């Protein structure tokens, strides 16, 4: 994936060897999922599937599980999120990258939280390529403070959300240019600089942020209709709006 990942742990044994081992296990899990899913790796399961060398039905259970999640994601977003996108020749091929990004981190972080649970009360924050996931077990610690980047100036932030459990995912063009395609048109969407979703699970926060970005103009009203989630959208003219208005 090429995503920079940082893990922050606070609690009674945060600097000890068990925590270090648990964090290493998180990085190992992400590398293992990268080996399965990366479209940049010629020998990954997903690359084989895309070349027609392997059937999805015969793939690793994790890949099949992700494919099922992608179908659910298309259903929940009315097709705005779609893992079967047109390739260079216009033929639709499987690309779960948008969902795997948040899902892999959520899986690995869940395992980390379980391991930390055996070591007493700890809090965790995982930052992965723009996605943030937090989990507090302690009740005597301050909230984690997760800021939302200003897509017009990446050294600035728009607002800061206090969070004890949950995830923040942002979709936009600020970092990599036009890499998100609208499944309906096959072209890059316009109308928003970024869309951020805050919710209980990173997998779905990521999916909804991607879908909102693709939707553009009606992103905010669509996000407002999602129970248990909050959203922030930045228009191309720089206006910032949230679902709390």
């Amino acid at each position, binding site marked *: 994936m090429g995503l920079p990942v940082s893990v*922050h*742990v606070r609690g009674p044994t945060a600097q000890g060897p068990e925590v*270090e081992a648990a964090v290493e296990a998180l990085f190992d899990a992400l590398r293992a999922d990268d080996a399965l899913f990366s479209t940049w790796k010629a020998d990954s399961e997903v690359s084989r599937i895309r070349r027609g060398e392997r059937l999805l039905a015969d793939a690793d259970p994790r890949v099949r599980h992700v494919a099922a999640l992608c179908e659910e994601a298309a259903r929940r977003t009315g097709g705005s999120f779609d893992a079967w996108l047109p390739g260079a020749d216009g033929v639709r091929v499987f690309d779960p990258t948008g969902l795997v990004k948040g899902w892999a981190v959520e899986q690995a972080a869940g395992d980390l939280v379980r391991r930390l649970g055996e070591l007493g*009360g700890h809090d965790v*924050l995982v930052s992965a390529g723009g996605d943030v996931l937090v989990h507090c077990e302690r009740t005597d610690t301050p909230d984690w403070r*997760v800021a939302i980047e200003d897509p017009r100036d990446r050294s600035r932030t728009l607002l800061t959300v206090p969070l004890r459990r949950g995830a923040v995912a942002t979709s936009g063009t600020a970092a990599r240019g036009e890499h998100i395609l609208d499944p309906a048109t096959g072209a890059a969407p316009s109308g928003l600089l970024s869309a951020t979703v805050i919710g209980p699970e990173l997998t779905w926060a990521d999916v909804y942020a991607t879908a909102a970005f693709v939707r553009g103009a009606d992103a905010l009203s669509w996000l407002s209709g999602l129970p248990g989630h909050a959203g922030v959208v930045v228009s191309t003219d720089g206006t910032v709006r949230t679902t709390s208005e």
Partner: protein
Amino acid sequence: MRRVVVGAMGTVSGLVLLFSYHTSLGGSALASGTTAGGTTTGAGSDGSASTRTPTQSSSGSSSSSGSSSSSDDSSGSSSSSAPSTSSSSSSSSSSSGKSSSSKSSSGSSGTYTGQSVDTRWGPVQVQITVKNGKITAAQAVVFPQENPRDQEINSFAVPQLNSEAVQAQSGNIDAVSGATVTSGGYIQSLQSAVDQAHLS
């Protein structure tokens, strides 16, 4: 005796004020002074009361950074971890909440556990160390509460994004959510600065 009690109360209010002030970048005032508080009571006690030294858990936090396998940007995978200066609060499960003291023959010296005071963080009990009648160290102990309200604290609640607390730019940031950044772009990113601050 009275001077010690007045001193303890003064310290409690000073420490309570500290709780509501967040230090920069993930640290919290609860972290101050986490030395082992286990100094024994002064010799020569009349045995009128016993002091309680709560078990002190050594606390701290660590941060690790790394990147997963490379994509089109040639970035190696490495992970590094270093101890961080931002430490979390200490906690204990001591049950007694009464003030107590004992004296040694050389004047007031020893460790005293003060009265429990209710704050918005929960009940706070202060432990002070006194040498020759002067308070040389003061430490607050926050007891985690095992009640349903604590579970509420850690359950996901949809944040109110138009609240003043969210809109205010306070500079105390633990992480930044932005559009996907690759390892190459990470170096210049705000998240990178935040991570480095945690690690240094």
